[in-house]
């Protein structure tokens, strides 16, 4: 009885989800793929014939350099997020339930403000006449203001600030599942704190680390407005190049090809994740 009554609801939900994915995910992406194989046109943005010139241009050392530098900036961002997020998530999971709820709430509150606005707020902090410099000078720690704005460091600070929650949340969920008995067992069997961490905690939280890295690494390469506002409008990230192709250079096929490069990079990461998961799973089942 119950099953029959659930069926229409289930169908409706599935239809909604599939419809959503088809219209808002698949169709736009197909448009991007389609655009990327067309030719740039001064009058109407895109034109026939179909070709792979845009992809060939991606191999230009210039763009390869931008991509690699972008990857470097994103990697530093991810590492910073991991170094801050890992202990944070661990500490969070050790608190009492009400406190956890409160802290998670505080973690999410910034999302209520547009990230562009928050980036401008960071600019006020980092500026030469900004709060940090004024405070440091006021305290007599420095005589001359530090140049922090319009540097790569400023961009990384901005990226870490915006993306940190995406690292903490998946880590928090794996730490939540980390059973204390396992740590106690490890101690009982004579392992010290460090060996317990390396052999028990790290492997068990690895899926959270991988999920967090994926949620931070790719977006970090695309957040062009952070590089524009805090980095002085240079091509620091792949996102800047993509934005310039669409808005300034009006080379839509190339912009589309560059964004597909990011999508493919994401797909490769997901695949790597899948593979590593399988291997981890095998490793656990063997003994």
């Amino acid at each position, binding site marked *: 009885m119950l099953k029959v009554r659930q069926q229409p609801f289930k169908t409706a939900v599935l239809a909604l989800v599939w419809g959503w994915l088809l219209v808002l995910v698949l169709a736009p992406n197909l448009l991007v793929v389609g655009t990327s194989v067309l030719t740039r046109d*001064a*009058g109407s*943005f895109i034109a026939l014939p179909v070709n792979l010139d845009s992809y060939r241009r991606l191999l230009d050392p*210039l763009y390869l*350099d*931008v991509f690699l*530098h972008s990857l470097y900036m994103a990697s530093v961002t991810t590492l910073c997020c991991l170094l801050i997020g890992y202990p944070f998530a661990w500490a969070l999971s050790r608190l009492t339930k009400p406190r956890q709820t409160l802290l998670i709430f505080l973690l999410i509150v910034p999302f209520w403000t*547009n990230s*562009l606005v928050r980036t401008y707020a960071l600019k006020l902090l980092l*500026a*030469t*006449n900004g709060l940090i410099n004024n405070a440091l000078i006021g305290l007599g720690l420095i005589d001359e*203001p530090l*140049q922090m*704005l*319009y540097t790569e460091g400023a961009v990384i600070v901005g990226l870490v600030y915006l993306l940190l929650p995406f690292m903490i949340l998946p880590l928090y969920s794996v730490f939540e599942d980390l059973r204390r008995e396992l740590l106690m067992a490890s101690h009982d069997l004579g392992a010290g704190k460090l060996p317990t961490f390396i052999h028990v905690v790290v492997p068990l939280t690895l899926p959270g680390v991988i999920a967090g890295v994926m949620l931070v690494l790719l977006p970090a390469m695309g957040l062009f407005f952070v590089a524009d506002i805090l980095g*002085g*409008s*240079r*091509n620091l990230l792949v996102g*800047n*190049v993509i934005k*310039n192709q*669409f*808005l*300034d*250079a*009006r*080379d839509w096929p190339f912009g589309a090809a560059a964004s597909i490069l990011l999508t493919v990079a994401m797909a490769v990461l997901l695949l790597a994740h899948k593979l590593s998961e399988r291997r981890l799973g095998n490793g656990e089942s063997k003994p």
Partner: protein
Amino acid sequence: MKKLALAGLVAVTLTGCSGSDEPQVLNLYNWSEYMPQEVLDRFQEETGIQVVYTTYDSNEAMYARLKLLDDSAQYDLAVPSTYYVSKMRQEGLLAEIDRSKIEGFDKLAPDLVNQAFDPDNAYSVPYLWGTTGLAYDSADLDGAEVTAWADLWKDEYQGTVMLTNDMREVFHVGLRVLGYSGNSTNPVEIEAAYNKLTELMPSVRTFNSDAPRMPYLEGETDIGMIWNGEAVMGKEDMPSLEYVYPEEGVIAWLDSFVIPKNAKNVDAAHRFISFVLRPEISALISADIGYATPNLAARELLDESVASDRASYPTEADMVNAEFQTDVGDEAMQVYTKYWEMLKSGR
């Protein structure tokens, strides 16, 4: 994001004005900080036409948007620079201006109308003209002799230089320093300008075309490029901000009102142009935002302090070597674009 929100607003207001009794709406698409609010308020008060004001920060962005939204007719008026007027005119994106509906056209400076970019001004009416020159903070660069674009390359300005985030303008500087025309279409010259500009890049702290005065006011940069109106506005907040006409020649431009082909409210667009051409309104705009009005009748109404401000109204000597920007064609634009990408990706 702000622009997206505004576009949404535009869409909402557009759908809301189909009935004839509804208040009329004029969708004006203009450069950021390029029209005093007072002008919009007074126009609305007088005509009852509500002005929906949306902004852009580059000709390229404006063009892309107008082109994309051409059929949905989101804008009734836009304000491109000369070389985009000719581009858009040739691509058939513009509606002809009905001169019989415009009052005050005859008061425009003769040397600014009937130019090659739009013969007989069939599609455009000049709004403001201005220059892109050198700015420096005389408080931070005490006793500095800043007279030429080439001064930006000096070692002592390392890390304090600001450039506009405008491909044509930045290359104009590079080309002029080498003695070429700022409107060069010669790939060899453009490449040479690129090589020259790469030497400047380590000194460049930021690119800014949102509000080029801000990095100076914020203390981030001490020397660099600026639009003259921004220099005038900036000087009100920071008296030590000086505007200089560089020896190699200042970059000059003229922005004009155009009506997109599919504009919904062509009549209101004409009325707005006439309104702005009134001497007292043109004078108010020039005094408020610091750019020069092409309206000769308005110039007579200007305060002495405004009319004699060399930053807004250059002398003949200031304009020696000055060059107006012209359309360089799509082929040259692609060459510029390639080197611009390389320049901004360099470290």
